[in-house]
């Protein structure tokens, strides 16, 4: 919402500069990045490069790794098992979550198991998955899937249980059958939770892919962390870091956008 009902105050000096910048999102973002890089530069000049490389060195390393194709190849190697695992986690987590949220007896039967599996730290599964699925892409995908499926499932299940009993009663008074009530009240109430779950699942899946590549397959972004970390090439170490950060931001934006498209009724709060 870009409203400027009040005329810009014509005060002197810094105030009006801040007011002008504050109203411009792009300018504000650019300024924030500039300040960040400035601080980084100053700090890097005062510590050994082994602790923190300078921004210029990092950009040079980034350019070099991009030009050699290493960074792009690694990104590809990371993205596809990540995407496959996440998509399966989303589909299965959402479907199971809805079913468990709607059929209470099924939830009573399965919830304890889900809780136990969810409580086990993901990393503890890894040796078992390697034993079952070998050292390869399949293990990686399964690991990403397991990391992401539980937050998706549990969030959606909670959402499906959350349906307003008053709205259910209203639908019943209008003559709605169980099936119609599911369609008209329960599923739409669960929709925001599907996106809330996805937001968590994306984060978990990212952790999953990096940890998986770092520990098992020696490919992709995860392996770059390991390799450049161990060889203490810190400037190069920052390149995959930037890729992962960009990926996380991009995915979060995508979820926000999808939420906006699929939940047009959601009132937006501006603080």
């Amino acid at each position, binding site marked *: 919402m870009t409203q400027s009902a009040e005329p810009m105050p014509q005060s002197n000096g810094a105030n009006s500069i801040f007011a002008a910048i504050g109203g411009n999102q792009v300018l504000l973002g650019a300024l924030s990045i500039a300040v960040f890089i400035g601080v980084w530069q100053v700090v890097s000049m005062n510590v050994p490069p082994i602790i923190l490389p300078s921004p210029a060195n990092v950009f040079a390393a980034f350019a070099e790794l991009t030009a050699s194709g290493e960074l792009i190849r690694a990104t590809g190697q990371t993205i596809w098992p990540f995407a496959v695992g996440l998509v399966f986690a989303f589909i299965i987590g959402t479907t199971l979550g809805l079913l468990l949220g709607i059929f209470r007896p099924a939830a009573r039967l399965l919830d304890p198991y889900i809780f136990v599996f969810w409580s086990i730290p993901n990393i503890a599964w890894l040796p078992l998955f390697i034993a079952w699925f070998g050292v390869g892409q399949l293990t990686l995908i399964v690991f990403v899937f397991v990391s992401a499926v539980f937050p998706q499932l549990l969030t959606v299940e909670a959402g499906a249980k959350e349906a307003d009993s008053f709205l259910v009663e209203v639908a019943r*008074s*209008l003559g709605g059958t169980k099936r*119609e009530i599911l369609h*008209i009240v329960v599923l*739409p109430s669960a929709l925001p939770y599907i996106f809330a779950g996805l937001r968590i699942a994306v984060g978990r899946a990212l952790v999953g892919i990096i940890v998986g590549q770092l520990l098992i397959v020696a490919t992709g972004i995860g392996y770059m962390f390991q390799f450049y970390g161990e060889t203490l090439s810190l400037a190069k170490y920052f390149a995959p870091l930037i890729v992962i950060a960009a990926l996380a931001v991009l995915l979060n934006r995508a979820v926000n956008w999808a939420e906006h498209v699929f*939940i047009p009724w959601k009132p937006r709060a501006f603080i």
Partner: protein
Amino acid sequence: MPELEFVNVRKSYRGPTGENLLALDDFSLKVAGGRFVTVVGPSGCGKTTLLRMAGGLIPSETGKIRLDGAVLEGPSPKMSMVFQGIGLMPWKTIEGNVSLGIQLQAHRQKLTAEESHFVKATLELVGLKGFEHYYPHQLSGGMQQRVGLARALVRQPEILLMDEPFGALDAQTRTVLQDELLNLWGRVKSTVLFITHDLDEAIYLSDMVVIMRRRPGRIKQVLEVNLPQPRYSYDARAEKEFTRLRSIAWQSIKEEL
């Protein structure tokens, strides 16, 4: 004309510590076809229970409720309910919410051209022309209750069951909507059973005011309101008869508070 009849109805609830709470006991009332009947009483006297039973949402424990002579079992397409909490689906537009009144009755998604025309006409009737594509949260409380009213009317009900529909609205909006309800009632000629705790509202709107005792709810007194309809065509609240009835009702209800 459709007629709603309560015969020796009784209903109790289980309290938090397992004790039996008798909400309504031996309640008998005949709402004759085409009449506007209001039930007033202190909170906790079983008014809402009464209406939920009439709407077929909860069963009575003993006794029965008859609609045109037939015993009521579950929600009936002949009746529409209007709630204080309104209960609009936040994910449906105003038009979508009103359409639900037909869709859930006919058990199909698609409205005929005639039906969608009727939905639009009903929205116009309650003064919401132009708001068809808004979402409920974009409307004021008074406008939302107009949608609730339209959703009820679009079913062309023989009986309207209204549970403190204007209770949550500010005084001005409430007065406006009371007049509009009388106007609509004059057109659709359905039977109305209206629950409120507001004596003025009860007397202003209805032909008959039923005063309840406090728990367990039973009928204490029935007042006939003989002021001519429509009451918005003159200053009904200033009539001697209005003040007389209000003072009788107040005396009666005061003993129950």
